[in-house]
């Protein structure tokens, strides 16, 4: 245990710039897929899993949501207290209704969040996530975005990230550590 503590202390200054802030220090206000306002304080005392995406995304986002749904099924009732949220980086197209139609295809514990552009930007800043609009021919566009899944302990501290290409077998053990 001492070794772990020393390691964390030694690495803290270098890594803190890129780590998400604790949930309790976040300042965004978003709207969920049922039209309800959600603030970070609503998540107090509960473990949290968040990822950024958009519903016009054909590959990464449904793949991540399918994976998350499988993890939640494997965890069963243990994951009932877990907050699981997709934050849209494309609020222009992802209205609460658009998100509702999308998340209904996955585990019912997954919520969709969207909001005004400045609130989405605030959420991304709090999570240290990035996103960028990429215009395509014919007026269409897509979004580049942080693909990892962020995990937070029940007290709001950042726990870890499940990377997009990480071996999915490690995801459920990571989640179990976050839940406890």
């Amino acid at each position: 245990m001492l070794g772990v503590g020393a390691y964390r202390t030694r690495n803290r200054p270098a890594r803190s710039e890129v780590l998400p802030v604790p949930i309790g220090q976040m300042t965004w206000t978003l709207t969920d897929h049922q039209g309800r306002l959600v603030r970070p304080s609503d998540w107090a005392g509960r473990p949290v899993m968040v990822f950024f995406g958009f519903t016009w995304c054909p590959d990464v986002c449904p793949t991540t949501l399918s994976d998350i749904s499988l993890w939640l099924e494997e965890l069963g009732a243990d994951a009932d207290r877990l907050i699981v949220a997709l934050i849209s980086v494309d609020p222009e197209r992802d209205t609460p209704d658009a998100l509702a139609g999308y998340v209904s295809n996955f585990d019912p514990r997954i919520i969709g969040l969207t909001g005004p552009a400045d609130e989405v930007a605030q959420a991304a800043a709090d999570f240290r996530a990035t996103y960028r609009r990429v215009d395509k021919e014919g007026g269409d566009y897509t979004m580049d975005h942080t693909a990892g899944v962020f995990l937070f302990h029940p007290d709001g501290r950042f726990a870890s990230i499940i990377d997009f290409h990480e071996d999915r077998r490690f995801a459920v053990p990571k989640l179990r550590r976050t839940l406890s």
Partner: protein
Amino acid sequence: MKHFLLATTLIFSAPAAMACETVTIGDLTVEHAWSKATIGAGRPGVFYVEIKNSGTTDDALVGITTPAAGMPMLHETVVQDGIASMPHAMSVPVPAGQSVQLAPGGYHGMLMELTTALKEGDSFPVTLSFEKSGEVTVNVDVLSLRAEGPDCADAGQ
């Protein structure tokens, strides 16, 4: 009742069987063609497939066409420094003696300007154009938005 159950089983297993259909052209084997259901026709669809080159000459997938979409393109999901982007792939190499997969999180066909929403259980044709072997058409099964791939007995081989 027994007949009813049997008929139901056949109906539900038919789409999966189609994704397991194998098409060959020259030294190339094309199989496990599938897609995901879309919500409406506004969002893009996706196309996944496996291609095996059992010959001694390198080939490449250079394009796809389908009546299901006005602008089908080859894309590759690239995750760099934790950020996912989806650049247009000019071609997907199919080296001699190797298999390539268009699969979730990697190369995929992006079906823009869908003519109609893709519904689970539907199927549609996609014509693949190869640099050397020419064109071949496969039937693509639409699985659920949650699907991770077709359930074929030989999947992954």
